């Protein structure tokens, strides 16, 4: 139990996928302009991460490792993620139109979100078992959601900011805010081991 909690806290706070490991930067910068779309993207990513891990972990352990074809990992994982995203999209469209309308638009973007492929591969390289992997995926998703929501809040304030030098307007000032947010997250280092050590 402590192992699972510390894995989750680590990926949410100290090793946050976006702010410490630079995974999923594109949606982080692209879809964080409004709070509601940031939440939608975050929830969709969390869901796909969990689903992708739930499918790829057994494939790695029982298919790729058994037949000694670990080198097909990247190829198989990305195909699995792409088809999962497609499946989820079709299911939502057919059976849950309201949910599709709020989350569906983000789904195609998720296929090329490196955080999803990243979490599935990292679960394997870190040697987590199935349950740990699932919680790590949820944690990574929550960490992504947290970063998105915090950053969306910052950017809504930035919109009303006056006096930014012309060459810093737009992307540069956004990146500087991201830098400060990531610095704030650095303060969490040591916290997780402090709690569980």
């Amino acid at each position, binding site marked *: 139990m402590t192992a699972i909690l510390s894995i989750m806290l680590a990926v949410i706070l*100290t090793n946050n996928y976006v702010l410490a490991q630079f995974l999923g930067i594109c949606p982080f910068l692209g879809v964080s302009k409004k709070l509601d779309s940031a939440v939608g993207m975050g929830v969709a990513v969390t869901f796909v991460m969990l689903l992708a891990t739930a499918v790829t972990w057994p494939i790695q352990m029982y298919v790729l490792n058994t037949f000694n*074809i670990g*080198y*097909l990992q990247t*190829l198989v994982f990305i*195909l699995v993620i792409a088809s999962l995203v497609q499946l989820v999209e079709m299911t939502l469209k057919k059976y849950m139109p309201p949910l599709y309308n709020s989350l569906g638009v983000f789904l195609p973007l998720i296929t090329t979100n490196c955080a999803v492929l990243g979490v599935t591969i990292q679960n394997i390289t870190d040697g987590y078992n199935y349950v740990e992997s699932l919680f790590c995926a949820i944690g990574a998703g929550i960490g992504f959601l947290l970063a998105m929501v915090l950053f969306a809040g910052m950017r809504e304030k930035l919109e009303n900011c006056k006096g930014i030098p012309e060459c810093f307007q737009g992307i540069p000032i956004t990146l500087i805010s991201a830098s400060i947010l990531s610095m704030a997250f650095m303060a969490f*280092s*040591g916290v997780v*081991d402090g709690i569980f*050590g």
Partner: protein
Amino acid sequence: MKNNNFKENFIPAIVLVCICLVVSLALAATYNVANPTIIANQQKSADEARMEVLPDGDSFTEYDGKLVNGVDDCYIADNKAGMAVTAEYKGFGGAVKVMIGIDANGEITGVKVTEHSETPGLGTKAADPGYLKQYQGVSEATAGHINDDPNIDAVTGATITSNAVYGSVVEALAQFKECGGVK
């Protein structure tokens, strides 16, 4: 109508499957060419890392007996010059992994931090080769904390990381006793 259906649904699927097959075959071929080199590389870099802490060692064989708590692996030099022990101990940002070389007399020949997530600039000073030199020749370390050992200094401002290195050294020396020296 039927023909159209076939064209629309099956041809794309067949093309995709064919591409997958061709790519997989190409990968299998590359893997067969590259794999022996990869294995040789891993073996070589692992041996080289062990020789950094135990310069007199040549090739190494894994010790298959009991490992002391905190010790990840223990390799004994084939020429009986000593052993290279990898141990880990809790640091500031997570576990600090340290490789320790111990010669046949039980004296430390080298200490190297192999993995850590400590604060750069502060904690990393405790991984500095200059700082780690003080462990050379040490054969006895049993204090519960680095501050309680008069022979070993901690880095100011990075006591936790220094203590993580110290803790790993304590574990490694205990492992040496567990093995009953180099046999």
